[in-house]
């Protein structure tokens, strides 16, 4: 049985990178988990984005080679309402995607995750997404990169947003577009209130933070279009108990569906210095243990 591939998104170390650690230290922490996949955020971790200095690119490759890391996904953005009076056109959206595809290719990435501007609270992407993506499919194919918008709470799997992406794949027949599943959609217990959040605010506008509880069985309906998973989580305690994400049901389902892609850790919890380093390690310990248990029970 082939296993999962393990990775870490540098998003996990938000606020630590740039205040208590640099990019190099972050990569060291990733490698020390035993992960092989490195996921970055274009506008966060690439100096002078979108045109990093050549010396930095050399350093990037030297560093990941030494640490045994492989670039996985480069998260990027298509900011539709780029000014208060102008929404980006399909052509402008395509130009942004083309720029990020080329940059991702230069840095060795296989996926990009564009985050399009949205038009409603269900995170329906701005309608330019389709025309913008269509215009860069040939380029993505040439560069061997798959474009993977994320399915992220509050958007579940059974939803017009997901269906529109699947429809796009089916109609174009492209192999360069897929779905990134963020495991936050399976969250089944509430998150603590964020700083400044009140019960009233949670109820009125942020009820999805209580968990949208997508049944893991729904993964079966889209798994053929899912090449990459962001393993979102918020808190894992000293007993390796995740307080919000039901790994004990997610892992068996992914094994049953023969998922062999990356699980790329995305810690999103309290941003006290250095907390993320330990939290990511706990998640890797927890998921690897569940995977081993599954494999042992099927041996």
């Amino acid at each position, binding site marked *: 049985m082939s296993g999962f591939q393990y990775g870490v998104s540098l*998003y996990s170390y*938000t*606020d630590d*990178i*740039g*205040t*208590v650690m*640099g990019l190099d230290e972050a990569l060291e922490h990733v490698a020390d988990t035993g992960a092989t996949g490195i996921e970055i*955020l*274009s*506008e*966060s*971790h690439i*100096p002078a*984005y979108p045109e990093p200095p050549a010396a930095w690119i050399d350093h990037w490759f030297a560093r990941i080679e030494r640490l045994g890391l492989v670039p996985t996904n480069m998260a990027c*953005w298509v*900011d*539709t*309402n*780029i*000014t*208060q009076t102008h929404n980006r056109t399909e052509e402008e959206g395509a130009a942004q995607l083309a720029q990020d595809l080329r940059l991702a290719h230069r840095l060795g990435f296989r996926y990009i995750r564009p*985050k*399009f*501007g*949205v*038009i*409603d*609270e269900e*995170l329906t992407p*701005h309608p330019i997404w389709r025309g913008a993506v269509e215009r860069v499919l040939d380029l993505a194919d040439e560069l061997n990169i798959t474009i993977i918008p994320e399915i992220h709470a509050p958007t579940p799997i059974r939803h017009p947003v997901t269906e529109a992406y699947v429809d796009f794949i089916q109609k174009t027949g492209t192999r360069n577009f897929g779905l990134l599943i963020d495991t936050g959609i399976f969250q089944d217990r509430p998150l603590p209130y964020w700083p*400044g959040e009140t019960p009233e605010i949670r109820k009125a*506008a942020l009820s999805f933070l209580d968990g949208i509880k997508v049944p893991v069985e729904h993964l079966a309906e889209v798994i053929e279009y899912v090449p990459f998973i962001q393993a979102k989580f918020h808190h894992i305690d000293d007993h390796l108990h995740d307080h919000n994400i039901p790994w004990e049901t997610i892992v068996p389902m992914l094994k049953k569906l023969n998922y062999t892609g990356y699980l790329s850790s995305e810690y999103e919890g309290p941003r006290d*210095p250095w907390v993320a380093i330990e939290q990511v390690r706990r998640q890797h310990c927890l998921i690897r243990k569940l995977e081993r248990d599954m494999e042992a029970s099927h041996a």
Partner: protein
Amino acid sequence: MPERSIIQSSGFANTGERDRRSGFTLRLRQPNYRGLCLSLVEGIDICVDGETYPAEGNFIMLRGKSFTHADMANATQIRWAMGECVEVIVPKAAGLKIGVHEVGCIMRLRHPYFPPQFQPAFVRESRHITIIQP
């Protein structure tokens, strides 16, 4: 590396000649998890000891270049990188007195991938920091 807080202690100073202060400058760390075009920064209000200095009257100094509030609205190609600091230049006759001040900032950041009702998003912080030179 900058301090963890958005409002930085270093960089807080009066501007202009010593006996003819024209205002003060405050250093802020970009608080978001990604870099932002300046056009996505809808404004930065500064508050000192209860007095507010609205974004429209302040200047933002980024990598040695000064932007008015109106300049920023159309600066779609100028990026304020994650963790990078700007200096907010606030005009104020005679500047601020020496000593510890309660300093706050309110940033209005537009995240296109947020639902419309959360655009802009507000980032607020307040802390006590010190002016050394009169």
